[in-house]
C-alpha cells in the first residue's frame, strides 16, 4: 500500500465472553466503525501471552488492542486480574524499548458495551493513524519478508 492511501492495520486480541460479545452487540445494533481492525478471539484475557502481541507487530500490525471483561465480571472469575498484572509489566517493557504507548492499548469492554467497543476501536484506529505506520518494526520485519 503506498504512503498516500496508507491505512493502519489494527489487531484486537479479545476475550470471548465480554469484548467479543460486546463487538457482536455493536453489530446487531448496526453501529458503524472503521474497518481496520482484525479480531483474534480467545476464551479469556488470561489466555493472552504477550508474545501474541509481538507476533502481531511482526505481521505488520501498526497497533494492537487488548480487551476483556471489566474487573469482577470475568467469566472465569480472575483471568483478567492475572492478565492485568502482565499487561502492566509488558506495556512498561515495550515503552522502555521505545514502542509508543499508542501502539499497544488496553480496554475493558463488557458484553453490553457495544457503544464503548465502537468508541474504543475508532479511538485506537485514529490514534495509530495519527502516529503513522509502525516503521520501526517494519524495518526489522523487512529482512524476513525478504526470505519468507
Amino acid at each position, binding site marked *: 500500500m503506498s504512503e498516500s492511501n496508507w491505512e493502519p492495520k489494527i489487531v484486537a486480541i479479545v476475550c470471548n465472553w465480554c469484548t467479543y460479545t460486546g463487538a*457482536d452487540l455493536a*453489530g446487531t445494533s448496526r*453501529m458503524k466503525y472503521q474497518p481496520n481492525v482484525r479480531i483474534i478471539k480467545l*476464551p*479469556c484475557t488470561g*489466555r493472552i501471552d504477550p508474545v501474541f502481541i509481538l507476533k502481531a507487530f511482526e505481521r505488520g*500490525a501498526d497497533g494492537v488492542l487488548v480487551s476483556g471483561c471489566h474487573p469482577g465480571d470475568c467469566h472465569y472469575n480472575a483471568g483478567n486480574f492475572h492478565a492485568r498484572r502482565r499487561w502492566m509489566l509488558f506495556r512498561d517493557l515495550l515503552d522502555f524499548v521505545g514502542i509508543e504507548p499508542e501502539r499497544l492499548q488496553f480496554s475493558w469492554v463488557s458484553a*453490553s458495551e457495544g457503544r464503548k467497543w465502537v468508541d474504543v476501536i475508532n479511538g485506537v484506529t485514529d490514534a495509530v493513524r495519527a502516529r503513522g505506520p509502525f516503521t520501526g518494526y517494519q524495518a526489522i520485519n523487512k529482512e524476513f519478508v525478504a526470505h519468507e
Partner: protein
Amino acid sequence: MKIGVYICYCGENIGRTVDCAAVAKACAELPGVVDSVDYKYMCSDPGQNIIKNAIREKGLQGVVVASCSPHMHEKTFRRACSDSGLNPFLCEIANLREHCSWVHEDVPAATRKAIDLVRMAVEKVKRNGELEPIRVPVTKRALVVGGGIAGIQAALDVANAGFEVVLVEKEPSIGGHMSQLSETFPTLDCSQCILTPRMVEVYQHPRIKLLSYSEVEKVEGFIGNFKVTIRRKARSVIEERCTGCGLCVQKCPTKKAPSEFEQGLAKRPAIYVPFPQAVPNKPVIDRNVCTHFRTGKCGICKKVCGRDAIDFEQQDQFVTEDIGAIIVATGYQLYSISKKPDDSAIKGYGEYGYGKYPDVIDGLQFERIASASGPSSGEIRRPSDQKEPKKVVFIQCVGSRDEAKGFTYCSKICCMYTAKHAMLYKHKVHDGEAYVFYMDIRAGGKMYEEFVRRAIEEDGVKYIRGRVSRIYPSGGKYIVKGEDTLAGEPIEIDADMVVLATAMIAQPNAQKLAQVLGVPYDGYGFYQEVHPKLRPVEVSTAGIFLAGACQSPKDIPEAVAMASAAASKALVLFGSDQLEREPTVAKVNEATCIGCFYCQKVCAYNAIEVKEIRDRKGNLVKTVASVNPGLCQGCGTCNATCPSKSIELLGYTDEQIFAEITALG
C-alpha cells in the same frame, strides 16, 4: 490438507456490504482450500447439506464457515460436520456479519476484511485437532436461592419430579413479597389464601431441605458439580426444639421494633415471627433491639420457653451442600421514597417530601393497609391519624421511567397494582374518591386491560394522564399538583392520602451475590440472561438458571412461569447421569513441565493437581502438573503463564493462535 470454505450471504445481511462471490473466489486460492462456496443461507438445510456433502465427497479435513457470529451458529455448523463424520472441532467460524458487514459500509474495505477473516480461520483450522467431548457425572440435587413465590414454585417442581432441593431464604420465613400482598390482580383473590398452601407444601415436602434465615456464602465447582457453602445466620432459637408455640413472642417486653413485614406500619417484639402464617413458624431474635443482647438483662423468652429452645450464644453456622444445578430467585426490592445517600442511584423525590409526610406511602404499605391481616385489619386507614381517607391519589411511575431520579425502565406491574389498589379502596370506602395519575397504561396480559377498564368504568376511579409535580401538606390534607395533559388543564387535588407506585428495583445485595454465583448482571443490577429471546432463564455460567424478578420486573404469573421454566432446565440436566462438556481444556506436556506450578497459582478452579513421576524402581523422577478435565473451564490462563509452555489449552493452542496471527493480511 483439504479445507472447505463456505461463505454465507445471510440473505442481504452479509451480502449487502461484503462481496461474497469475490470472497469465495479469493479463498479458493488459499493454500489447502479445496472447496470454496458462497450461498444465500448457510444455516438452512440446503446450506448445511452443501457442507455435509463436501465433507463426504471431497474428504475435507477442515471446514470454515464464514457467516454470523460463532455465538449464533457455531454449534449448528459443528453438528453438521459431525453428522457427516468430521470431528466437530475441525470446524471454525469467520464472523462476517456482526464483526464486518453490519459494522462497515465501504464494500471494498469490508470485502478485504472478510477475506482476511476467512484466511485467518483457515490457517487456524489447519492446526485444529480432533477433540472428544468430556463426560462428567451430575449431582442430581438443586439449590434454589430465594423463597418467594418464584423460589417456592421452582423448588416444588424439582422436588415433585423426584429430586432433592435445598431452598435457601435470607429472611426468617419464606413467602417473599407475595405474602405481604392483600389481593392479587386481575382476579382479586386473596394472596395469602393461594400462597400459604404452597409454603406449607414446601415445609412438609420430604425432598425439600428448607434453610431459612440463611445466605449463600461461597460457590465452587461447575455445572453438575457445584459445592455450595451456606451461612445459617444465628437465629438465637434452636429450630429443632422450638414448637412455635409463640409464648416467647407474647412475653417479650420489647415491643417497639418496626415490623418489616408490615412495612413499618406496625410494631413487633424483639423475638418475633414475621407473620402468623410464617414458614417455618419459628421465631428469631432481633439482636439489635433485644434487651438481653443490648444490656445482658431480661432473658424472659428463655425463662418462659418450655423446650429450652432459646440460645443466646448461638453463632452463625456454615453448611456445605453438593449441588448439580442452581436456580436463582432472589426477587426485587421497592424504590425507597425517602432520600437515599448520594452514592445510590436513588435520588428520592424532594417534591413529594422525601417520605417525610406520613400519609404519602408506597405500594407495599398500601397492600398492608388493605390486607385483612394488616395493622388496620383491612380497613382503609391513613397512617398519621388512623382516619378513613375520603380522597386518595395514586401516582404511577415513581422511580420508573425517570432517568433523572430513578431508572429508565418501566417496572411493568405498577399499572396493574395501582388499578387494583384503587379498586380495593373504592370497594372498601364507597363514598371515597380515587384518582390515578399515569403516563401510559401498560396492561398487556390476560384480562389485564379489562381489569383496568373495570376500575374506571365500574368503580369510577378517575384516571388523569400526567405526572404529578408537587405534593405538600396543607390543613391536614395533601395538595397534589398535576396537569391533565389530555384536557390540557392544570389540576390540584386535596388528598387525604397519597400512594406512590414506586419502581421495582434490583435487590441491594444483588451484585455481591452475582459475584459469588458468577452470574452477570445488567446496568440496573438485574441478572443477565444468555439470550433475551431464546435462552431467557439461562445465564452464561452453565448450570445456573434464573427465576422471577431478579432478572427484571415481573408479576406473579410471569415469575411462576419463569420458575417452572428454570426448574425444567434443571430437570433436563438431571435427566442424564453424565454431562458432556466442551473438550477445550488444558493439557500438560509432562516431558517439558518443570513443576514450577505457576499454572496452579493462576487456576481459579483448582483444576491443577500435582503429579509425581517415578521410575520403575519407584524413585521420584520429578513432580509435574496435571489437569483435572472435569474442573478445568478452559480459560487458558495457565497456558499464558507457563514459562516453558508445557501446558496448552486445546482448541486455542499457541500453534493455532500464531497461525491465525500469521495469516493477518
